[in-house]
């Protein structure tokens, strides 16, 4: 069995964990997200890189990456946007199906999985991708250690953030 090769950057014992902003940039996250949208949501579904205020009833989905770098990839958008995304994903495959809340959670979670898997491949490995979760409260990340992309999809705000876990700060015993 071949051991998975990683992309080269390896952390030596005693080094501080790498900051996500040293490993991945907004342009890469944006490109990964755009490809997911073009392939799965629709071939003319463009993402416009513009920030806009997020509605109060936002929904997030996220996957965790555990390895030399540990953190989450989080997708956030308004609930109506999440419903529209679910419709677009299912398009011709299940047009007659009445979309329920768990379908929206599932679809938004799968988009986080797709973006997260591709983000993981850019980060140093080997690492493990967790199963997607959906909710109104994403895991807390360290503000200074977050790579975040704000886009508009069909005019509505959507953010993708790659963030180190807050508990990483407690790695060194207090």
């Amino acid at each position, binding site marked *: *069995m*071949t*051991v*998975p*090769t*990683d*992309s080269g950057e390896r952390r030596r014992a005693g080094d501080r964990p790498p900051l996500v902003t040293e490993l991945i940039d907004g342009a890469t996250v944006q490109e990964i997200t755009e*490809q*997911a949208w*073009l*392939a*799965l949501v629709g*071939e003319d579904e463009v993402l416009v890189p513009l920030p806009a205020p997020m509605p109060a009833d936002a929904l997030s989905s996220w996957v965790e990456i555990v390895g030399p770098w540990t953190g989450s990839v989080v997708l956030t958008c308004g609930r109506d946007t999440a419903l529209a995304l*679910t419709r677009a*994903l*299912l398009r*011709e*495959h*299940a047009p007659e*199906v009445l979309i329920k809340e768990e*379908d929206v959670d*599932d*679809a938004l*979670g*799968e988009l986080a*999985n*797709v*973006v*997260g*898997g*591709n983000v*993981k*491949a850019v980060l140093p*490995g*080997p690492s493990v*991708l*967790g*199963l*997607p979760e959906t909710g109104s409260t994403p895991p807390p990340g360290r503000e200074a250690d977050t790579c975040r992309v704000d886009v508009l999809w069909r005019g509505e705000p959507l953010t993708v953030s790659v963030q180190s876990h807050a508990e990483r700060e407690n790695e060194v015993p207090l």
Partner: protein
Amino acid sequence: MTVRALVIDDSRAMRRIVTGTLEGFGYETRQAGHGQEALDVLHEGWVPDLCTIDWNMPVMDGLQFVNAVRSNPAWRAVTLMMVTSESEHGQIVRALAAGAHEYVIKPFTADALRDKLALLGLLPQEVSL
């Protein structure tokens, strides 16, 4: 020729996308939400021509499922195609070494699935032309 596929993914949306696409190519499909559920379908006697397999799933993951199918000679004719967002070079090598025939990285388009099935000789003729 009716081609049968078992679509294995823990996301219902993704299962609908893959089954919808395969049915468009003339496939007869069934679905499973994880590897164990898929093994149950095979044990029950519904042995497909193709399994599309997600990697990260609860209960039994895709790599464990590939190993389980490959360890049973009765299922030798089943073509195994990973369809997953796991996209490191080393992960693809691992899946192929375990016995997967093909590997589609999420996100994918219907055209990408069609191209891979054509490579595997699993595209009903009228669609490939």
